[in-house]
């Protein structure tokens, strides 16, 4: 019997000399049947917000999930906006992810061990939405509480945002802050952003809606380009 042997080694993923961070690659245009699950953009309810079911077969249920939710404290808000490119054209194949604390300012993460601040059963604070043909995305969530910053500082209520799309080779990270919050003036992260660009990180309450609808457009490039972070 011939001994079982591997081919000669070559420079690849398993080469110890190359060990290090796996490089990022674009999410591409065809992620809709794998990543943004039905309900993924509704962090407090049981709707199917988030997915684009018209882009994959009806019988594909891999993503058909809207988990049950418990009682979630805080002010329910809608966070919505348009993603556009350098020419102002909407991006119809972007995916937006959000990560946030609950209304009390606690992250549902094993690395936030401040047990004196209550979690909300059923609220994870992570969401995913695919943009529409018009580049539009929408989340339903709660207004997050303030969370600790570096040293003794306090960060204003904010939501971390990741942007993925065809043509985006690595995630673009940004944050949503909320207009009218006094704490914005002393937020340690906003303070690092050039003053004339801070407005790109601040959602505004839509005046033509009933309230609780916050608008946050994401401009990938050009005039009004959103501030993205190196984290």
């Amino acid at each position, binding site marked *: 019997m011939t001994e079982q042997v591997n081919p000669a080694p070559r420079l690849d993923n398993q*080469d110890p000399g190359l060990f290090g961070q*796996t490089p*990022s690659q674009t999410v591409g245009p065809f992620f809709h049947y794998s*990543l943004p*699950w039905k309900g993924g953009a509704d962090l407090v309810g049981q709707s199917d917000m988030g997915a684009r079911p018209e882009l994959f077969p009806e019988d594909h249920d891999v993503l058909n999930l809207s988990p049950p939710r418990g009682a979630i404290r805080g002010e329910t808000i809608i966070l919505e906006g348009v993603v556009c490119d350098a020419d102002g054209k909407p991006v119809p194949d972007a995916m937006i992810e959000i990560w946030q604390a609950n209304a009390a300012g606690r992250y549902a*993460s*094993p690395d936030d061990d401040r047990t004196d601040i209550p979690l909300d059963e059923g609220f994870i604070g992570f969401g995913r939405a695919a943009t529409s043909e018009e580049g539009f995305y929408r989340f339903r969530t709660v207004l997050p509480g303030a969370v600790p910053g570096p040293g003794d500082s306090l960060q204003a209520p904010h939501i971390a945002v990741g942007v993925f799309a065809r*043509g985006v080779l690595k995630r673009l990270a940004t944050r949503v802050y909320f207009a009218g919050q006094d704490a914005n003036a002393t937020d340690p992260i906003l303070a690092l952003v050039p003053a004339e660009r801070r407005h790109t990180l601040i959602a505004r309450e839509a005046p033509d809606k009933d309230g609780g609808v916050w608008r946050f457009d994401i401009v990938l490039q050009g005039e009004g380009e959103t501030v993205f972070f190196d984290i």
Partner: protein
Amino acid sequence: MTLILPYAREDAGQPPSLHPPYVSTVPRSPRQPLVRIPQTLTELTGPAGCWDNLMGESLFDLTDQHLARPLGQRIVVAGRVLDEQGRPVRGTVMEIWQANAAGRYIHKKDQWDAPHDPNFTGAGRVITDDEGRYRFVTVRPGAYPWGNHHNAWRPSHIHLSLLGPAFATRLVTQMYFPDDPLIEIDPIANAVPSPYRQRLVSRFDIETTQPDWALGYLFDVVLRGRGATPLDPEYGEDDHHD
């Protein structure tokens, strides 16, 4: 509160946002410099361990989702999810999607004239075990043409999406195959500088190959690791921002 070590910054192997040979990056990459910020509790936390509440159960066999087996070369892809210190990343979710053996996605916007396979969707997810190991079963995806430039073809690839332990460790990438001549002329793979793009090339492995059943490929995913320096009380690990 417990002191949390920050995660390492990007290493030299990450692609730039702008890589003009990949044409879609030109209008979709920022031109303003990124604003460097310290990692705060926001970036150091993430939805670790609650993937099943978010996305549902593990679906590791992409060849077993329909009435019959899909066409194409059956393969096993296995490996580990590690941090930069080589420690396993346990219980983390890896989402997977890919074209079928003919190079066609089930996605409505994929209009290339290659056949769909009624027995293949091409989506799954796996969870790493206590040693960071994962394993999934699928068929080898085909190459397919795309509109980036004249006669452009994507190499065979499987899309991978990992949450990792924190917002800072999020990774979306693509895994390639070792015997594919299209890699060296692919603008997306080549956005990653040499030699680091070879990190994206899986290795054929006879031990992972299952006799009379499926070829085996090894692919480890390395996420950003916790750095050696604790958070500076003022501004994270340093006060350098450019």
